[in-house]
């Protein structure tokens, strides 16, 4: 990814290969409040560039400006200053939304529609019809594993199912960019894992994903680029690996190592000038992985 420090932002509509999927340039968003004379600045000079195929995670605490940034990108709010573009098209133009799928935080769809009807509705809005539409609806229901609930009213869906049908509607027109606002908020670990697997599938297919979350572990698992936003300002941005690696330390993970071997290695390190053993011990799984494994074992 090209960061703000590394390149000058340019909109390049005639060069599809180099056109960023998302380009947010010096975005500022102020909201008028009735309680304060001074407007509330929700987003303060934020710039983000996401190239096609990348999975970008915008992380930050609640109220830091993540959702407002996404809404500005989707044209749901107008920037006070700055510009947002999707594949080179200004976000305030309707045609910029041809290439985008969006899943808002805690979405509620029309409760009177079934899962299949919901997808048909969104598909028709995107210009799909006939066999193309029917095919896409079936494909999306299979993708999010909701074929069994296709004719059930959305009102009877669980939280995790709602998120998955939301993801399916976001993908219905086969967009090149998917924007996910807190995609796993309020979902249990199993549902959360399913959604993360779906995001990984999208990444494998070359679809650009822009997600925001305050669940850091999940972002770390799926994103290759991250930005940290705090009080409306972007305070850190870059490749995930580069941001989280500790440059002066190295991991060596051994299998079936005897205590004697570990003692030998430790002694070797201690004999080397400038090097030291920081920590030895057994790697631990995460509580989430343990939970998922136990659930799976119980089901079998």
């Amino acid at each position, binding site marked *: 990814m090209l960061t703000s420090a590394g390149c000058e932002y340019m909109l390049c509509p005639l060069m599809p290969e180099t056109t960023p999927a998302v380009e947010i340039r010096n975005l500022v968003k102020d909201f008028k409040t009735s309680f304060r004379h001074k407007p509330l600045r929700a987003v303060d000079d934020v710039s983000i560039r996401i190239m096609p195929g990348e999975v970008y995670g915008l992380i930050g605490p609640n109220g830091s400006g993540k959702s407002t940034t996404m*809404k500005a990108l*989707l*044209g*749901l*709010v*107008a920037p006070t200053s700055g510009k947002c573009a999707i594949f080179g098209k200004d976000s305030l133009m*309707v*045609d910029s*939304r*041809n*290439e*985008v*799928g*969006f*899943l*808002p*935080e*805690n*979405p*509620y*769809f*029309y409760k*009177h*529609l079934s899962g299949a009807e919901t997808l048909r*509705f*969104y598909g*028709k*809005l*995107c*210009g*799909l*019809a006939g066999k*193309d539409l029917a095919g896409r609806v079936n*494909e999306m229901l299979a*993708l999010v594993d909701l074929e069994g609930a296709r004719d059930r009213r959305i009102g009877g869906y669980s939280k995790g199912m709602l998120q998955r049908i*939301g993801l399916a*509607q*976001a993908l219905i*027109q*086969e*967009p*090149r960019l998917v*924007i996910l606002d807190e995609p796993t908020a309020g979902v249990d670990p199993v549902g959360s894992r399913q959604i993360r697997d779906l995001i990984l*599938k999208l990444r494998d*297919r*070359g*679809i650009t994903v822009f997600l925001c979350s305050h669940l850091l572990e999940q972002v770390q698992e799926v994103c290759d680029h991250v930005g940290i936003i705090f009080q409306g300002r972007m305070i850190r941005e870059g490749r995930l690996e580069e941001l989280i690696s500790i440059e002066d330390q190295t991991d060596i993970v051994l299998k079936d190592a005897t205590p004697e071997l570990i003692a030998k290695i430790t002694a070797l390190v201690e004999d080397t000038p400038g090097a030291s053993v920081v920590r030895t011990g057994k790697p631990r799984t995460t509580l989430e992985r343990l939970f998922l494994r136990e659930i799976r074992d119980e089901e079998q």
Partner: protein
Amino acid sequence: MSTPTSIPMQGSHFSRILTISTHTFTQLVRMKVFYFLAIFAVIAIASNFFELPQHEGPEAVGANVLRSIKSWSLGAMTLFSVVLSIVATALLLPKDVEDRTLYTILAKPVPRFDYLAGKLLGVLLLVFVSLALMDGLMTAVLHIRTGMVVAEQTEMAQAMGWPQDAIASLRADTLAHGPDASLQGAVFAVFLRASIMASLALLISTFSTSTLFTTIVSFLIYFIGHFQADARDVWLQAGQAGEGVFARLASLLLALVLPDFQLFNVIDAVIQGEALPLLALGKLTLVGVYYALFFTFASWFIFADKEF
């Protein structure tokens, strides 16, 4: 999943508006709003038996019953259509915002005008279908009752030894109160009035913060619309005010913005058995379409810049 190539967009404004309007219609139908049709059926049938004060001869009794059926039925149609158009429209927009379904719709390539027009047309489709069903029931009841009244009157007149031309005249007078084209025109006028109210409720809901506010203000404007023409006349004719250019311009502006529902008094004339001329209906249609379009475009003007 297939390859990640972008699907070319083939959707037109028309298809998107159609999608949203049929969806809105389905949404309202599944809210079980058609239950009120059962109430209407009771009113239409019960109106056969309402006793009206009788000061005329026995030959007028039948015509009064027919007038009663028309009056109660058209009154119920007006009530249901206006309530339905205001409440349904006031409900839809805030609900979509609250449930965030609006985000998912506007995040698709859907112009905001298409969304508004689709919602409004969905409500109008519901009102139209409701009125058509009520009209069918009223026409059926009126047709059957007219036949019974004509038979009773003919029998009575023959028993009293009326001449044939007098019997024919009485029959013609009674049939004028039966189902005819003017009655259908009156039902269409009811639909036009409901359309104006639905588009007005849409306009208010674009800046209102609650469904209750939209509903109350819409009903207030509905009632104001019934006497605004009188109020303007009184103002213009009172003293010096009416002579000023400003007063006349203000009056014109008021008439352009606030619908004059006295124009719809033709419905009352139809109840009394008068014919509704095609020209009058045409004029009423133009007025209805003008206000509906004016309020819809005003809604769009506000909604286009609204932030969510």
